[in-house]
């Protein structure tokens, strides 16, 4: 098709790096004119919206957007729809009511839940844990907190969540807060569950630096530092998300929608989340010493599964 598709993260963040390759592959595999990875200069709503607007002006016909601001993005999305340009929320969701066709990303609740489970298991079923979370303004953070609490509560008291430390998804902040935490309470706590990229990295580093293998860490995403920490036993595991898949399948779906050949099924089997009625899970899995070598292929598998079944599962096509 001759669609020009843009994949736009909320701002510069290592998590989104795989989107670039995913876009290229999608363009090749599905014969799309262009699938470009466009990053706003900073994590600021106005920069993201200005970027989207300028891309529309440049003739892009579909957008896969990570809503840096789940609400703020909607006014822009409305305009896209008004100019009948389809858009998806990728990796994170826009807050309903929203005009994005659907939200395709990690089921953050589930991922955080599984992560905490894994941590509890590593702790042998009891202990005090601290939750390192991302931006407080990001509604997903709330979900993750709930998930962590839920997993802990299922141990009926054996595991307690001492504290949720939020706004740790930036280097300076993470460095300052996590070190302060370890400084103040490293002897009281037994485990760390991180549900954001950067605190996972920083926590892994700090524990290595402390030389402390007693405190168990379960992080998120597959930054090399975290993987090394797992290898050397400073971290119990990390929850892999599927950014590549999000970019790849996202581009595929956008292409179909933009070409006008397909529309979103009314009765598609969407997952309901507190944020949106129309959510699709892009898959998640736990990386531990066991599968550290092979997890990439597992993710690839998940991706292809979703992609092949996507059309008839979620779309009406002529």
């Amino acid at each position, binding site marked *: 098709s001759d669609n020009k598709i843009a994949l736009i993260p909320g701002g510069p963040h290592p998590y989104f790096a795989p989107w670039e390759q995913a876009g290229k592959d999608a363009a090749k595999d599905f014969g799309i004119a262009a699938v470009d990875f466009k*990053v706003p200069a900073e994590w600021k709503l106005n920069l993201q919206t200005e970027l989207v607007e300028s891309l529309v002006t440049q003739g892009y016909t579909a957008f896969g957007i990570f809503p840096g601001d789940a609400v703020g993005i909607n006014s822009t999305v409305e305009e896209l729809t008004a100019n009948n340009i389809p858009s998806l929320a990728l990796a994170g969701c826009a807050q309903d009511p929203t005009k994005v066709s659907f939200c395709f990303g990690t089921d953050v609740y589930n991922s955080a839940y599984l992560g905490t489970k894994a941590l509890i298991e590593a702790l042998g079923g009891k202990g005090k844990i601290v939750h390192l979370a991302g931006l407080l303004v990001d509604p997903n953070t709330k979900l993750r907190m709930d998930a962590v609490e839920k997993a802990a509560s299922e141990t009926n008291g054996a595991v307690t969540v001492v504290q949720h430390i939020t*706004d740790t998804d930036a280097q300076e902040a993470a*460095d*300052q807060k996590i070190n302060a935490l370890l400084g*103040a309470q490293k002897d009281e706590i037994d485990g760390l569950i991180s549900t954001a990229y950067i605190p996972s990295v920083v926590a892994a580093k700090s524990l290595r630096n402390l030389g402390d293998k007693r405190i168990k860490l379960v992080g998120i995403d597959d930054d090399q530092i975290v993987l090394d920490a797992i290898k050397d036993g400073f971290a119990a595991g990390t929850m892999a998300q599927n950014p590549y898949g999000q970019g790849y399948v996202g581009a595929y779906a956008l292409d179909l929608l933009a070409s006008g050949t397909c529309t979103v099924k009314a009765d598609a089997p969407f997952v309901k989340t507190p944020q949106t009625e129309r959510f699709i899970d892009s898959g998640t899995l736990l990386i531990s010493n066991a599968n550290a070598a092979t997890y990439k292929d597992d993710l690839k598998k998940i991706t292809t599964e979703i992609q092949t079944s996507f059309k008839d599962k979620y779309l009406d096509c002529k």
Partner: protein
Amino acid sequence: MSQNRNLTFGQRFLANEWSALAVAIVIGLVTLATLSSAFLTEFNLYVMLRSFCVVLIVAFAQMLTLAVGQMNLSVGALGGLVAIAVGGMMEKWGFPVPVAILCGLAIGAGGGLINGLLTVRTGINGFIITLATASAFTGINLGITESIPFYNLPASFVAFGTGRISALPYLLLPPVLIAIALAFFLARTVPGRQLLAVGGNPQAAELSGIPRDGVIVMAHTLSGLLAGAAAILAVAQLGSAQPSIGVDWLLMSFAAPIIGGAALAGGHISVAATALAVVLIVIIQNGMVLAKVDPYWVQFLLGALILAAVGLNRLRAVRAGGA
């Protein structure tokens, strides 16, 4: 115009820059130590000292421009630029650490030099000049990195950022040396005194044969150099060269010297008082975390602190009878 020989003790105490700060710090230490057992633990002290390092140098960077009655709104931007430059040189071009550091410092000084030259050559208010160059520096930073940090830095370098002897981080060494050097420079060397002279009364300085413009350029250059040093330290501390380094320096850079009693008009700064101001700020921030207080309070208290400080300075001026 009173002689300050016959002052009461109270007046003499009020009359020196750091008195109030010292008191505030002692109070802060005591309260936190009593409130939280964790406060005085070795690791926590290490954490505090560690966050102290970068801020201190940033404050000095601003202090030097304030000394000549100028401002440098580009400390943060310049810092960010140096940070990614150093990171890039080490990761992409594999420069040896010392070389990279020297280049970084050179870039910082260069940026400062540009600020200084533009200010004196054009005679445009330094505020506007540095506001503009700040945007330019940030632009270069973002343009080069596309905001992607450099993560893989030499182990030795990163180790320096995290290493410590009991509670003392290696990171503490540079700021301490810089502080001493700066104090000596301003108190005992000719360029140092000239710097303060120009700040104190530009025309008098010029009439006394001091190269006014040259001194202002020097102040800006040194300011840039220190911004660079701070950035390199920040990189070592974070273990990665973040393009975002420096974005939140501005407020701090002014807060510390001003709380330390520096006069915007120039000619009056104090290395010791500025350092104490930074200590106070760090203690407050750390206390916030210990007390699990909403981080937003830091913002708030910093503002309050500045107001309190300027208020106190005026009070002191009145009491000590000096204009």
